[in-house]
């Protein structure tokens, strides 16, 4: 299958997005738009909330419009009754389904603008080969990354500079939307192989090596809860970890308590995680959380049949159902 990707230069993407936002705001289809804007540095494209059609000029679509805008819908819904428009990539759209399945979102109160996505760039990978301070802009054109570095323009094969999570993305196209912003892209063929590669690598270690590996990872955890707060599957009104009575999780950064946190966090998203990989990407300490989430996905698929979360908001997650003949991961004699 021929790899089909975003077909025209970034400027036009951004224009398209601004158009849609402008129209939606002007004809009162929505009272606000959630999208992305550009900030101080080339690698910053944070989420932005707009209500005034004049502000749509802030909106952009570039290799760093990574952060999922979806979870902000929770607060939005609580704070106002009006309808909001939101731009979502493939991964973000599964977050929408996540919230719908968890009955945390009223579909009719959101206008979903689906943005087919050819993958996002990894600033670290770029810094490794270009002086960050001199980079003025980075744009994705076709399969090429075009960088303005100092006075010169650099063109490189995009793939080498994309986020790992994008390289193993199975659903680059939105799975739920009211309007598709431009035509769909075709998923990368090698997405599937790479999906569980890191999990298998860790699985292949012996018990003590696995423990040492994870201990090294979790030792860096600063208990900032960014992974939880970013995750659209972590959408409880009051997280169990924030409760004082009973206190499920100690506040001390004790290694065992950190393990407790990561085990229970992963368990709570088991069968619900839709692999956006944001927990791992935004972790300040670089803890490979996706390896943990994917391990559970792999385990559930193997034992209870393939299941991909965030595709159909009407089905029941694997841990909410059972079959009499289910296999068990323990001695059933």
């Amino acid at each position: 299958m021929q790899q089909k990707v975003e077909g025209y230069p970034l400027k036009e993407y951004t224009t398209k997005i601004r158009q849609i936002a402008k129209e939606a705001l002007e004809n009162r289809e929505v009272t606000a738009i959630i999208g992305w804007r550009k900030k101080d540095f080339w690698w910053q494209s944070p989420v932005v909330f707009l209500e005034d059609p004049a502000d749509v000029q802030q909106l952009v679509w570039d290799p760093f419009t990574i952060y999922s805008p979806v979870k902000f819908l929770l607060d939005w819904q609580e704070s106002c009754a009006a309808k909001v428009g939101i731009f979502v990539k493939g991964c973000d759209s599964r977050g929408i389904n996540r919230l719908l399945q968890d009955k945390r979102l009223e579909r009719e109160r959101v206008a979903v603008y689906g943005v087919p996505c050819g993958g996002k760039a990894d600033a670290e990978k770029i810094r490794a080969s270009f002086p960050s301070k001199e980079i003025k802009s980075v744009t994705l054109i076709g399969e090429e990354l075009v960088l303005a570095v100092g006075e010169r323009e650099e063109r490189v094969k995009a793939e080498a500079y994309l986020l790992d999570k994008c390289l193993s993305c199975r659903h680059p196209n939105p799975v739920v939307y009211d309007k598709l912003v431009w035509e769909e892209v075709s998923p990368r063929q090698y997405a599937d192989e790479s999906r569980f590669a890191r999990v298998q690598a860790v699985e292949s270690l012996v018990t003590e090596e696995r423990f040492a590996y994870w201990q090294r990872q979790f030792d860096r955890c600063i208990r900032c809860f960014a992974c939880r707060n970013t995750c659209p599957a972590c959408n409880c009104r009051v997280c169990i970890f924030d409760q004082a009575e009973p206190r499920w999780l100690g506040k001390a950064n004790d290694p065992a308590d950190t393990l407790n946190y990561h085990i229970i966090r992963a368990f709570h998203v088991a069968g619900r995680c839709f692999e956006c990989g944001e927990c791992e990407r935004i972790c300040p300490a670089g803890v490979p959380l996706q390896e943990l989430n994917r391990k559970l996905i792999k385990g559930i698929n193997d034992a209870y049949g393939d299941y991909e979360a965030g595709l159909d908001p009407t089905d029941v997650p694997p841990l909410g159902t059972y079959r009499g003949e289910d296999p068990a991961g323990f001695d059933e004699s």
Partner: protein
Amino acid sequence: MKRIGVFICWCGSNIAATVDIDRVIAAAQKMSGVVYTDQNKYTCSEIGQAMIKDAIKEYRLDRVVIGSCSPRMHENTFRKTVESAGLNPYYLEIANIREQCSWVHKDKEAGTAKAISLIRTAVAKAAMNEALFAAEMPVTRRALVIGGGIAGIQAALDIADTGFEVDLVEREPSIGGRMAQLDKTFPTLDCSACILTPKMVDVAQHEKIKLITYAEVDKVEGYLGNFTVTIRSKARSVDLQKCIGCGECIAKCPSKVASEFEEGLVSRRAIYTPFPQAVPNKPAIDRAHCRFFTAGKCKVCQKVCPADAIDYEMADRLLTNQYGAIVVATGFDTHKLNNYGEYAYGKHPDVLTSLEFERLLNASGPTGGKILRPSDGKEPKTVAFIQCVGSRDKAKGNPYCAKICCMYTAKHAILLSEKVPGSKAFVFYIDVRTAGKDYEEFYTRAYEECGASYIKGNVSKVFPDGDKLLVRSVDVLSGALVELSVDMVVLAASVDARADAKELAQKLAVTVNAHKFFTEAHPKLRPVDTQTAGIFLAGMCQGPKDIPETVAQASAAAVKVAAIFSKQSLLGNPTVAEVEPKLCSGDLSCMAVCPYGAISEQVVEERRGREMVPRKIAQVNAALCQGCGACTVACRPGAINLKGFTNQQILAEVDAICL
């Protein structure tokens, strides 16, 4: 701070022998919240309970911990105790220091240490116990009895006689069950039919009893006082309203099938009543063997029926009814003898099972009550009775004793001597068990007055020898090899649970034991109850029994049912799930895992800033909730909690254990 009292029971020497009570007491006194401790030889005794009540009053105790036997034993006893002293019964916590400690740990050091730990854990939990109150639920005052044998019949009659409605469901076209197949009953030798038939008629005529024959239980939902049962009424192909029971159809039916009731000794028709005194005495068409249903033409029965009662179109019907309680009386199967080729059963016509022999004895049986050899119709002069065929046989049959064989074989020996003058019975046995009123006397009569010879020994082989049967065995008392040439061999086949007992058990959410007999709630103290409230057991389906035991258990079950129906409403189980609205996200993952449909969505008004806004959250129907707690784990934020087993309590137990 709670004021906890700790009471340690010696249970005579059961606990005191392996647990150093004084050290446990000393340790308990140091536990936080404990303001009073005491010990007693038998805490469950009057004195023991009085001691607790007095202490509660005198020391203003607000929580009580008792170190004693399993809570499954005396939790209710002691809950009543603390309640009578003015405390909520759920302020009680029991530490199981007998079954879990003194009885299983011989070493006193280890036992004492563990006992202290168990007490500490109970204290930690008790400190968090809250007052619980049961929800009221209505009772449907109509009972379902499953199985129309003597057990079901007795249970149905006794319940109906207390004035409550009963539906009696029987799988066969007629009620009567195994007892109807019998000739006489031990030890009194009164005629089985003579005592059973009137009861069958009573059932048919009782205004409170609705008889549903040729039907099976399809689905059971609900709980004590509120079961919803779907019954599959199989297509009888005969309209019971129209049928006058004249029997014309049976007489004219061209297709013959081996008669189940006659144990296959003779045949019946495709349209049939199982036996002459059947209730209802109206036939059913056995479609598997009916010429019309198999070959597509015939309809003779329809032609001859004067009442136009034959209905080939009739289909299975599903009846769904409400019941407050259920009595299971599904009886037993006789053990299949496939594993006992050495006895030539099935190979030689004159080798019979006891039940077949029973039919030969029966006046309404195939031989009109004469004992005749199937092979040549001659009277057998010598008959060998082989005991425990498939019983007490770990290798090839059932490990358990079928219980009735010794007695009915004595009966057979006696009847043989009466019906065939000059005949002789030889009984090969492992042991003769005659526990029961007048049983030993009955057995004595068999060998003293009726000349039966009892030979202690297993029969190794039976083989044809001309028109005789050669029985080879060893008399283990004399050690002598025994070889007997007899005219007939009767095998005391063991009894099995019904082949489909497990399926029914799963429909009813009750358990069966390794041999598929239904398990009682307690082997001694609750032999009629099942684990599931409102479902009771009667007769062989619970384990081998003779008729008097079966009838006694049936009446007992009836009283249990009547006791439930004597109330307008029932108090539910107070340890139910409850939702903390502040924590509930309303994703209802709890709902997906609730087996009782006890969780639903509700809208609550919540203050946000100045205004009140509606929000959807989960709610629990306390009457439906059975308190399994599956929802509490499905709920990620821990918003749904289980009273009596709260997250706080269990975490406190964990912490205390790990101290």
